[in-house]
Structure formats: C-alpha cells, structure tokens
C-alpha cells in the first residue's frame, strides 16, 4: 500500500478514527520561480542545468539580489526548499570571479558539515574548476590541516572548532581572515539559549579579528521557521539583516493526523501509553513498506522503540538492518551509514531523537511518526518536514503522550497548525558567557583603551576586572594577556559542562571499544552504575562509571527490563536582583540561584508492561548549575489558613499549571525552564513557587517571566478552571494520584487569592 491508499484505509477505520482528534490535509503547493540573476557567474549555469535546475525559486532569487546589494541576509525556509543554493551560489560566484575570495561555513554539527561539503564538491567538480572546499573539525587529520589553512577557499566547520581551533590560532589563518568575503551560518534556529549566546560571542571575536586583518565579510544566515528569525539573526551577529521568508519551493500533499491514545482508566484519567501506539503505527508503516521516521523525545524511548521494530523484521539469523536507531552518542561512522541507508532505501524505518531534525540529508521519506510533542512548534514542523518533499503524498502522525503539553496540543491542534512557532531567545551579554569569551578575545588580540567588544556595553568594566585579577596587564594603553591558561579550552559552547563521557564496551575483554559518548549533565541519569544502557536496541549494563575520568564501562546483557533514574534537585540563593511586595501581601523576587542536581536512585521497568520491577541506589557526585530565577511567595495570612498537606498539594498543582502555561507565554521550549515549589523555601523562608532558566547563567526567561508575573498566574488559573476534570488530570494541575483529591481545589483557591 502506498501512503495515499493507507490514508484512505485509515480514514474508513472507525476504531482508529475515534481517537483521532484532527485529520488535517495540507494541500500541495506549486513552485514559484524566477530567472537566474545576471551577476551569477555564467560557469554555474550549465552545472545547475545538469541537475535539472533552469531557474531559481523566488526566495533563492531574492536572497541573491540582497546579497549582491551587499546586505547581510537571513533566509527562512522549510526543509527541502533548496536553501543551500541561497549561499552556495553567491559564494561560488564570488570565488569564480576572484580566486582570492574566501568563505567560512558554520554548521551546528559535524554531520551537517559532511553533508554540505559533498554537495559543494559535486558542483565544483561539475564545473571543473579549482575551488578548494575543506572541512575543518576534530576529525581533520593533522597532516591535512596545513592545507586547509593555506589553501581552503571554503572552510566548513562548526562553532566549537571555530571557537577553540581557529580563532585562538588566527595567525595561522592569515589567508582566510584577510580575504574573508562571506560567513555562512546554517540552521541558526539551533543557536538558542546557551549555544546561541556562546555563538554570538564567538562571532564578536571573529569580527574583531576580521577588522584586524582588514576584511569586511558579509553574513548569509539560514533558519528553519521560527517566530523571530530576524531578531535572532540580529542578536547573533550584532548587525541588521534583510529577512527573506517567502518560500517559492513546491510541496506535495500532506496529511497531518493528531492521535490521542484512548483513556484506559477514567477515574485516574490515565491513557494508554504513547509508546505502544507508536509501536503499532510505525509497525504498520514498516509492514506496508512505507519508509518512515519515528521521532521520540528521549534516547531511552528511541532505544525501546528501535528494539520493538527490529523484533518485527528480524530474519532467521537475527539481523534487522532495515530498522535502525539514530541519536546523539552514536559514532559518526555509524550515523553516516544510517543516513546513507535512508537515502538509498536500504533502511525502511529509523527511530530517532531530534538529532535527525536538522538538515542532514536523508532523502525524502513518506511518513513521520512523532511519539510525543517535541516541545516546540518549530521542532514539530522540522520533524514533520522529514516526511514528504517536493511531490507525492506524505503523512505525519502525532501521537500524544499523557504529558500535559501533549494533551493540550492534541486537543487544540490549531495551536500547532496555525500558531507562529516559538521565539529563539539568546543573551550574548549573559555575564558567565560574555566573560569567558571576553577572555578568549583578549588572548587573541590585545584590547586597546576605548576598544569595544561587539555591541556589549561593558567592555571597560570587563577590562578593569580582568586587569585587577591579573589576567590582563594594562600598559601603554593596551591590555595584554598575561596568564598561562588557554582560555578557549575552558568553555564548552553547548553546555556548562566541558567534557563528555565516553562509553566503553568491555564485553570482550580482549577488545574494549568505544561505542558512544554522552554529555556530563545526562551521564548521571543514564550511565549510573547498574543502569541498563541501550545502544541500537541492544542492552548493556553499566558496570562502572568513572566520574572523574569521564568514562563509563558497559557490558552486553539481555534482561527483560530497562532503567529510569530519579533526579533530585536542590536550590540555593546566590543573589537577589529585585524584590517586590505584591498587592496580595506576598513577595515576587528575581535573582541568581544555584541548582544542584543529584541522582540518588533508579527504577527497573519491565518491557511491554512497563511495570516497576524494583529499585536501586546510585552514588554519584552532584552537578551544579548557576542560573537566574524568579519566584512568588504565598502571603503569610493565606498560607496560615491552609493545613500543610493541603498547601503542598495546592502548590504542586500551581507548579504543574505554570509548567504548561509558561512555555506558551514565554515562547520557549518546556525544557528551557523549570518550575518547582517549596513549602518552606530555604531561599525566602516562606511557601514559594520558583521558576528558573534551565541553562547555566540563564538566557533571560526568568526576567521575561518577572515582567509578566501576574499574567502567568491568571493564565494558570484559567487553565485549571477550564479543565473539565473534577480533581485534577495531567492536563492541568496533575493527576489525582500526585496532587490528591484537594489539589485542584486548593490550587484554584490559592491562584484566585494571588490574582485578586
């Protein structure tokens, strides 16, 4: 059965349709084209013709025009709209016309770089010209690096390598810096939060060096659909950009099916799990030979689903190569192989985390199954975009989990279908991040009196501070680096933690092999001792976690369960920035806090039935994060009136409500913020509800929340009051089992008092 037939069949299946909350058909869209502009180097035209390209889509043509006018541009395009042409054409054209010209390409991951380079190679080879394109990243052999530095016309790299491998050694890259014409940054929507704030500072450093070498590069940025591409781009590069966001590429018909698993326990409001449903739907696609991608939110779910699907297609020898798992932590070679398998049709089904959301070329798939809401509208569309490229029917299934946000989406599909996607927020002046990069900048090139660092206001204060600390040495109007450290090695752009854990399979004592890696924050959750670690559906038990050496040793096992760790969070106050008395007698505060995370125990959960088989203890050091927080205290006279158990349930309900409401009004992903409640808070000594930025240093969400603190509470009250459940459910204050029978009532009562 093909997709159209399958869709037809499902629509006649009443059993299936009773749980479908919406079946949206997005009609096919024709192409809008424009001729090649005159300033395009004529040598490019035959190569494009060979690829069947005889004109440009309108957004490509407009980009080229704006670039020709010397503007910095941001192109917003969905998956598969030919956005690479928006930068490859002007870059190749410029190098063809002046072979000294250089371009720098930045992609968020190595995988994307590899992909783009192969596309560029093809075009360059097709023209038979000598334009050297090199990837420069951690995998570039030392012997090849010299050639890249000297001769690379187009240097393809990632922000991390630019930060630690190129900028601090800029004197080896004279040719590039002196002749840098274009800086291309793709997938800029991924540069939000910490990563984006870091990149913005890396770019400040880059531009400072360009100025030293006398070059004035132009920026070409590309983004997937987000609410604020122009704002994001301008914050990233600190300059005004021209936005091009009309998509001229064609698209085939697309079905978008919202599916809410049936309720299995009405009293407790418990629904059938999303995983078994996903298993069934992805399995159905697999059986019908419809090439599909299944997205799951966690690495664990990816592994569980991969195993289920592999079991369906295993041949007598146990091989199930048609089904593959894909997530961060797989080694590059394995990933390339899976990507290739998807393109050439050898892989029928892939189960992935959002790692495959980005523009890695895996060809056009027919179907996409989302097991749970990926957290943002932008992500959801990125994932959905994996199914269906330019022509032919495609289908997307959204399977809601019992999480409140999923329930909200599945019951309000218009939120996803019509609402503008989220803002991508970043804060280049986050002091933690700014200071680190400022040190790097001072290392790279001494600051002189009166110099500026990008558009940051605090250059002079930073210089004075570092001078005081003895890190800089002020003499004759210049600040010289005078410390032994190599400051770039102290920052990791993607998270607070600098080092990744490597995962070593010791099943065969003669051949220990590295099978993957994991970031420092996640490692305690998934790699604690006795955890079942899954890799491509195979089970391993963690034998030893060497926390100091950042190594986990695992051994192959075959057990009927997986493990899930419990995370304990502790908060302490570092500094109060603002405190306000509320009209109701409570206090609203804003400040810096320290969040300490500790994994203390884990559950063993049986496959298929998902029942808890037992517990285990974990002994690991804590991980710390400094961030920004805002909080509400309950007025004393109000709290005093309510018995403490009931108060606790009510506060838990409010926290749950805020977790639903805040991402919607702060326009961020749910994982970007955390909401906790403390009946007697060590921070305020009162019953307190705290919201904090879930990224080191914070990216400004708490500040934004402080500005709309009354609105957030009134929206929380509205969600609770609008929800038809009697005593609470996952879509409002949380299930009765958690908040108790009086939880919802108390939450509403407290919120009414707080918003009076």
């Amino acid at each position, binding site marked *: 059965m093909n997709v159209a037939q399958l869709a037809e069949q499902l629509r006649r299946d009443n059993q299936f349709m009773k749980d479908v909350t919406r079946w949206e058909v997005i009609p096919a869209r024709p192409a809008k084209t424009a001729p090649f502009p005159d300033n395009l180097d004529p040598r490019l035209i035959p190569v494009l013709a060979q690829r069947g390209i005889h004109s440009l889509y309108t957004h490509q043509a407009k980009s080229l025009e704006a670039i020709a006018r010397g503007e910095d541009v941001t192109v917003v395009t969905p998956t598969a709209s030919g956005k690479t042409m928006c930068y490859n054409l002007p870059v190749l054209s410029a190098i063809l016309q002046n072979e000294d010209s250089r371009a720098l390409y930045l992609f968020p991951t190595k995988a994307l770089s590899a992909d783009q380079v192969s596309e560029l190679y093809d075009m360059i080879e097709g023209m038979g010209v000598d334009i050297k394109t090199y990837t420069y990243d951690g995998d570039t052999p030392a012997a090849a690096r010299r050639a890249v530095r000297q001769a690379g016309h187009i240097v393809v790299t990632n922000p991390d390598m630019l930060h630690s491998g190129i900028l*601090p*050694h*800029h*004197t*080896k890259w*004279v040719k590039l810096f002196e002749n840098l014409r274009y800086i291309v940054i793709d997938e800029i929507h991924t540069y939000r939060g910490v990563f984006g704030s870091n990149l913005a500072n890396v770019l400040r450093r880059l531009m400072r060096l360009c100025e030293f070498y006398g070059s004035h590069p132009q920026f070409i940025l590309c983004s997937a659909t987000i609410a604020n591409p122009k704002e994001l781009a301008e914050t990233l590069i600190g300059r005004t950009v021209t936005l091009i966001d009309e998509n001229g590429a064609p698209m085939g018909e697309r079905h978008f099916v919202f599916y809410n698993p049936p309720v299995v326990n009405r009293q407790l409001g418990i629904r059938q799990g999303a995983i078994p449903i996903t298993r069934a739907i992805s399995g159905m696609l697999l059986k019908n030979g419809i090439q599909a991608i299944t997205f799951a939110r966690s690495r664990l779910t990816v592994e569980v689903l991969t195993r289920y699907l592999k079991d369906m297609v295993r041949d007598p020898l146990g091989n199930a190569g048609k089904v593959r798992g894909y997530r961060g932590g797989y080694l590059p070679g394995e990933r390339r192989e899976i990507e290739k398998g998807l393109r050439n049709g050898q892989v029928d089904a892939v189960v992935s985390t959002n790692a495959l959301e980005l523009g890695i070329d895996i060809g056009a798939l027919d179907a996409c199954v989302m097991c749970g809401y990926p957290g943002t509208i932008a992500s959801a569309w990125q994932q959905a975009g994996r199914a269906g490229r330019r022509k032919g029917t495609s289908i997307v299934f959204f399977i809601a989990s019992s999480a409140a946000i999923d329930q909200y989406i599945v019951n309000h599909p218009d939120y996803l279908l019509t609402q503008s996607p989220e803002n991508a927020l970043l804060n280049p002046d986050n002091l933690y991040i700014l200071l680190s990069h400022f040190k790097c900048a*001072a*290392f*790279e*090139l*001494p600051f002189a009196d009166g110099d500026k660092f990008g558009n940051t206001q605090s250059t002079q204060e930073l210089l004075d501070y570092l001078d005081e600390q*003895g890190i800089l*040495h002020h*003499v*004759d109007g*210049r600040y*010289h*680096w*005078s*410390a*032994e*450290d*190599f*400051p*770039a090695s102290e920052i990791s752009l993607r998270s607070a933690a600098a080092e990744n854990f490597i995962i070593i399979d010791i099943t065969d004592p003669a051949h220990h092999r590295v099978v993957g890696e994991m970031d420092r924050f996640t490692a305690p959750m998934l790699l604690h001792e006795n955890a079942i670690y899954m890799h491509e559906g195979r089970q391993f038990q963690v034998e030893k976690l060497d926390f100091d050496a950042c190594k986990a040793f695992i051994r192959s096992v075959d057990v009927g369960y997986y493990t899930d760790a419990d995370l304990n969070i502790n908060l302490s106050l570092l500094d109060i920035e603002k405190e306000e008395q509320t009209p109701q007698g409570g206090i609203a505060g804003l400040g810096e806090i320290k969040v300490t995370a500790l994994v203390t125990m884990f559950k063993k959960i049986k496959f298929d039935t998902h029942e808890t088989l037992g517990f285990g203890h974990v002994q690991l050091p804590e991980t710390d994060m400094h961030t920004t927080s805002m909080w509400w205290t309950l007025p004393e006279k109000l709290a005093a009136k309510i018995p403490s158990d009931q108060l606790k349930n009510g506060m838990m309900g409010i926290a749950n409500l805020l977790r639903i409401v805040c991402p919607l009004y702060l326009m961020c992903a749910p994982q970007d913020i955390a909401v906790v409640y403390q009946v007697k808070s060590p921070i305020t000594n009162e019953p307190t509800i705290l919201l904090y930025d879930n990224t080191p240093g914070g990216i400004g969400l708490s500040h934004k929340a402080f500005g709309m603190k009354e609105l957030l509470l009134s929206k929380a009250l509205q969600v609770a009051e609008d929800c038809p459940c009697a005593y609470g459910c996952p879509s409002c204050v949380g299930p009765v089992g958690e908040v108790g029978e009086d939880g919802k009532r108390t939450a509403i009562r407290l919120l009414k008092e707080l918003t009076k």
Partner: protein
Amino acid sequence: MNLRDKLRAVGGTGGTRQSAPETEDRDCRHFAVYRPAEEFPGALELSRDTLALMSEKEMPEDFDPRRILYLDTETTGLGGSGTVAFLVGMGFLTDNGFEVHQFLMRDYPEEPYLLKHVAAGLGKFDVLCTFNGTTFDVPLLESRFLMNRMSRNCLDLPHLDLLHMCRRLWKLRLGRCNLGRLEEVVLGKPREDDLPGSEVPQRYFTYLKTKQISLLEDILKHNAQDIASLCVLLNHMAELYQHPEKIRFSEDVYSMGRALERVNQTEPARRCYRLASRGRMGDLASSALAVSYRRSGQREEAAEVWRQMIREGRGGVTPYVELAKYEEHVLRDIPEALRLTEQAIIRLSEPGFGQDDAVQADQNELQYRWQRLKRKLKEQ
C-alpha cells in the same frame, strides 16, 4: 650598526653574563654570555656534508659552522596567539668560543624591539638551529611578527630541528627525547638546579608585577644553557655520524643504520646493522641488513643473512619465509622453498607465538603459499 657588530662591540670574558648598554631610547633588555671554545670540541670542523646527512636537507654552498644561529625562546604559554616570546636567546660560534645574546622584553610594549633584534640576528646567519622549533618556536615567532605587523621573511632560513634529528637516533632507546634527558643520557651532563620549563610563564608574570629582575635569573640561565646545549648536541651527533663504531648502545647503532639508510648511505648503514646484529637489536638489525641487500639487488647476500639467522635460530619465521621466496623465485628450487615453508608453518605453531589475529593471518598466508608451492611442484 647592524646586530652582529653591535653584539661584537659588547665584548667580554667567558661564562659571565653582563648587561649591554642600550643603544636606543626604548629598547628591550640585552644580555650576552660567552662560553669558552673548549666546551664545544670539534664544532668548528663540522662539515657541510655531514650536516646534510644528519638533517636530510640541502646546506648552503659556502657553509660555515660559524654561520649557524642557535635559537631558543622562553614564552608565556604553550601556544595560540596570546602566547608571547618574552625572551629570545640566539647563540653562535666564533673563532674564540660561543656567544649567546639574549633579548628580554621587560614589558609588552618592548616586544617590537625584541622582534627587531631577532629579525636582525636571523638576517646575519645562513642556517637556523632549534630544538622543536618547527612546531613551536618558529610558528610562535611568525605569529608574533604578524601580530606586530612585521615581516616574517627573516624566518625563511634552512632549519635544523634537533628534536627530529635526535629522535631518529635515540627514540628507540630513550622513548621521549627532551633536551634535558638528552643532556643527561647522551651527553652525560645532567643539569643541576634547573628551572622546570613549566614554571617559566608564572615567573615572568610575577616579574611583570614586581619588576624584580632577579626573578628572571633562573630563566636567563636556563635559556643560555639550552642554546649552548644545542651546539654541543649537534656536534656530538656529527661525531657519531662519522664514527658509528663509537656508539655504545646497540639500539642506537641500529637507529644510526636506519638514519643512514634514509639518506642512501648504504654501506655505512650496513656496517651499523652488522655491528648491531650481535646485540639486543640482533633480529631487527639482521633483517634490516638482508632487506638492504635485497633492495640493491644483492639477492644472494641477502639470502646468506637469512640463512645465518636460521642457523642461529633467530628472527622467528621471517627468515624462513624470505628464504623460501628467494628459493622459489630466484633459484627456482621449488622443493627447497616447500621445505622452508613447512618449517615456517611448524615454527609459527610453536607455543611462543600465541594465537592472536596477526599470527592467524600469517598462518593463513603460509598455508596458502604452501598449497601454491605444492601445485607448482606437481606441475613441474
């Protein structure tokens, strides 16, 4: 006045450091150290040909050992554009001994002056000699010239990096070849009270704050010693290249053989291999000798070496395999080739060889050879 003349004008006696007068209003600090000629035996006789062999590089036509500039830097870190060479020492031989001239920047604004002295110094010499300069000192100075918008052309001299040359001779025996270790083990002169290199940057930063020049005494001493050692080491190596029989360790003799073979000194290389074939390196040396013969087409000489190894029970299965090839392809004695292959198979299955993948692969190859020889024998 050019730098060399300036340096000359300073004058002085052996082994003492003295502060030279500053010739410009703003300049960096200059120190000069003079060492007596006796500390550098044979240094003035170093020949162009020997140096070419050692360095594997073309040397200038009118080569003169007095026109090698020995250079070493002391830096504020391990690299990257924020690392500065705050002290550059340059030494050279004269008819009377060895002079080291050290240029110290007392603060960052003096860096351009220091670099000017370095450029002027380099400009007076034909060959540059460093220890690990290819990866460290030269790129660092290049970076400094660039950061100060000065020309880097002065660094385009033929460059002898002693680290690479020393590794060829001593890596096999010593493993890591740093200058301190070479001085101790190869030259037999361990350094006493030497400042560890890792403490150098912090010393300098403390000096920057206090401006107490005495803090830098140790660094200046260390730097001057490093530079003098470069010259001694170079000449010591030259001596060994000319007289390999003076080498005491068989690892080093074998390494010398390899080094000589790289520069096509076939006969001297073979002499080294023969010398080494009696010691701990016997198997490697004999194999290398045989391979050397085979390469130059002296197949029978090569075979004789393999035969001798078999007679002495040395070298594992390699001599059998090599000899079998010779019997099969050159002498066309298939039965003898078959016999040798069988013996190799038997030897390889002896317990001493273990059973890992590499042995298994060898065993497979031998089996294949054996079957091929069997077929060939039948066809005859």
